[in-house]
C-alpha cells in the first residue's frame, strides 16, 4: 500500500468531521474521492500531507506513519508529495513564472537555465505560456488553478494530491487536465488522489473511487463497481449529477 488511512477520527470546531475513515491506494494507482460539499474531503487531504493530525487512527504513506514524523522528516516526506490546493494558493506578489519556479529555487537550488527549461515546459503543457509574466490577480480563476497545478507537479512528486482540479474550468480544459493527470500517472507511475465533484472526470481517470459521506467511506470500488452500486447515497449522487447536466444543457 502506498497510502493507507486506518480508522481516522478528527474533530474540528466542535464537530466530528472524520468518523472512522479508512481508505487505501496502491502504488501507481489513481484514487478519486467524491462526496457532497463539507464532508471532509479537503480535511482528508490535509491529513495525508501532514497539515492536520488525526485525533485517533493512523496514516501510513510509503511505509511511514506520518503522524509520528518530526519536522525534518515531515519536510523530507513532503518533498515527495505534490498538492494542488482548492484555491490554487499562488503567492500574490510573484508572477506565474516565479510561482512555478519557487520550489525548484528554494528546495532544489537548480541553476536558472535548468529552471527555465522545466518551467517553460510545464507552462506550455498547461497552455499558460502567455500568462507567465502576469501576477495571479491578473489571470482568471481557472488559470490560477492551472498555475497551481504546474507548481505542484514541477518537482515530479511520487504522490500527487489534487483538490478539485477541474472545478472552475471549462469542459475542454477539464478534459485536458484529466488527460494530464493520466499522462503523469503513466509517465512517472505517480500515485494520485483526486478529490472531485466531477463524476465524469472521476470515471475517466480513476482506478478506484471512494465516496465520502459523514466523514466515512460509504462506497469504494472500481468505476464499474461504483456505477453498479446499490448504495442509495451513491445512486442519488450519480443521479443528481447527470440529471443536472441535462437540465443545464451539459454545463459540466
Amino acid at each position: 500500500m502506498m497510502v493507507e488511512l486506518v480508522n481516522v477520527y478528527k474533530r474540528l470546531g466542535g464537530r466530528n468531521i472524520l468518523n472512522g475513515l479508512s481508505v487505501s491506494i496502491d502504488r501507481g494507482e489513481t484514487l478519486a474521492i467524491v462526496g457532497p460539499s463539507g464532508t471532509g474531503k479537503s480535511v482528508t487531504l490535509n491529513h495525508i500531507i501532514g497539515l492536520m493530525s488525526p485525533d485517533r487512527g493512523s496514516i501510513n504513506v510509503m511505509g511511514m506513519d506520518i503522524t509520528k514524523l518530526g519536522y525534518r522528516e515531515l519536510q523530507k516526506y513532503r518533498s515527495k508529495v505534490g498538492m494542488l490546493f482548492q484555491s490554487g494558493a499562488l503567492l500574490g506578489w510573484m508572477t506565474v513564472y516565479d510561482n512555478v519556479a519557487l520550489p525548484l529555487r528554494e528546495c532544489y537550488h537548480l541553476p536558472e537555465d535548468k529552471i527555465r527549461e522545466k518551467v517553460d515546459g510545464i507552462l506550455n503543457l498547461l497552455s499558460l505560456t502567455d500568462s507567465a509574466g502576469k501576477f495571479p490577480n491578473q489571470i482568471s480563476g481557472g488559470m490560477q488553478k492551472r498555475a497551481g497545478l504546474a507548481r505542484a507537479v514541477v518537482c515530479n512528486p511520487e504522490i500527487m494530491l489534487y483538490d478539485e482540479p477541474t472545478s472552475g474550468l471549462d469542459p475542454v480544459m477539464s478534459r485536458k487536465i484529466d488527460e494530464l493527470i493520466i499522462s503523469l500517472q503513466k509517465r512517472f507511475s505517480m500515485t494520485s488522489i483526486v478529490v472531485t465533484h466531477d463524476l465524469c472526470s472521476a470515471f475517466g481517470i480513476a482506478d478506484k473511487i471512494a465516496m465520502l459521506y459523514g466523514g466515512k467511506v460509504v462506497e469504494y470500488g472500481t468505476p464499474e463497481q461504483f456505477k453498479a452500486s446499490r448504495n442509495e447515497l451513491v445512486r442519488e449522487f450519480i443521479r443528481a449529477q447527470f440529471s443536472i447536466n441535462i437540465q443545464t444543457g451539459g454545463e459540466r
Partner: protein
Amino acid sequence: MIISYEPDSFPPTGDLVSRLGRTGGIFLRNVGRGTLLVLQAFAGIPRALAGSRTDIGRALGQCGIRSFGVTSTVALFTGMILGLQAGLILRAYGQEMRVGYLVAQTMFREMGPFMTALILAASVGAAMAAQMGTMKVSQEIAALEVMSINPIHFLVTPRLIAMMLMTPVLTVYTDFIGILGGALVANTQLDVSWTAYYENVRFLLTSREIWVGFFKAWVFSVLITGISCFQGLSATDGAVGVGTATRRSVVICFLTVLITGYIITRMFY
C-alpha cells in the same frame, strides 16, 4: 507546530473560573508559540543574508518609506508638546534655558523609541498581520509548507531583518525631529536662543541615553514583527479572521511596547 491549521479546540465552559483558566491557557500557549516563532525567524537570518536579498529589500521599503510622513509629523508635535509643557514648568523656577536638556533626554530615552514603535505597530505591523493572515486563509501558507519551504524563514525572517535595521534608524530620526520641534517652541514661546538650546542637547549626545534608546528600538522591532506575524499566521475563518488578527496584533503590540518600555527604563535607571 507553531502554525496551526485548526481552530482552538477547548471544550466549551460555563463558570467563571474555568473560563479564566481557559483564557490563561490560550494566552500562555500563544506566548510560547510566539517566542518559538521569533527564535525560528532568527535562526533563518544567516540563510536569508546569503540568499538573493530581494525580499529584505522589499520589506525595508515597506517599513521605512511608507511610514516616513506620519513619523515626521508625530515626532515634530511630540517635541513641541514636550517643549511647551516642560518649558512652562521650568519657567516657574526660572530654569527655562534647561528645556533643551529635558526635551532631548525624554526624546532619546522614552518618546523617540515609543512613538516610533507605536507608529510602526499601527502601520507596518498591521500590514504584516493582514498580509500573513490573508496568505493563511487562502492556503498560501499551507502551500509553502507542502513545498517544504519553511514559511517562517521565507516570510518572517526578511521582515524581521528589515524591522531590526529600520526601527533604530527611524527612532534616531524621530529623536531629532522631536528635538527640533522642542527648539522651535523654546525659541518662539520661551525666548530660549538656538545656541542655548543646542548647548543643552549636545551635552546629552555622548551619554548612554542614546544607547538605551537604541536598545529599546531594537527590542520593539523584534516584538512588533513577532507579534504581528504570529497573529497573522494564526488567522483562521476567512476574511473575518484576517480582520480579527490585524486588530489583535495592533492592540497587543501597543500594550507590549508600553509595558516593555517601562521595564527597560527601570532596568537602566
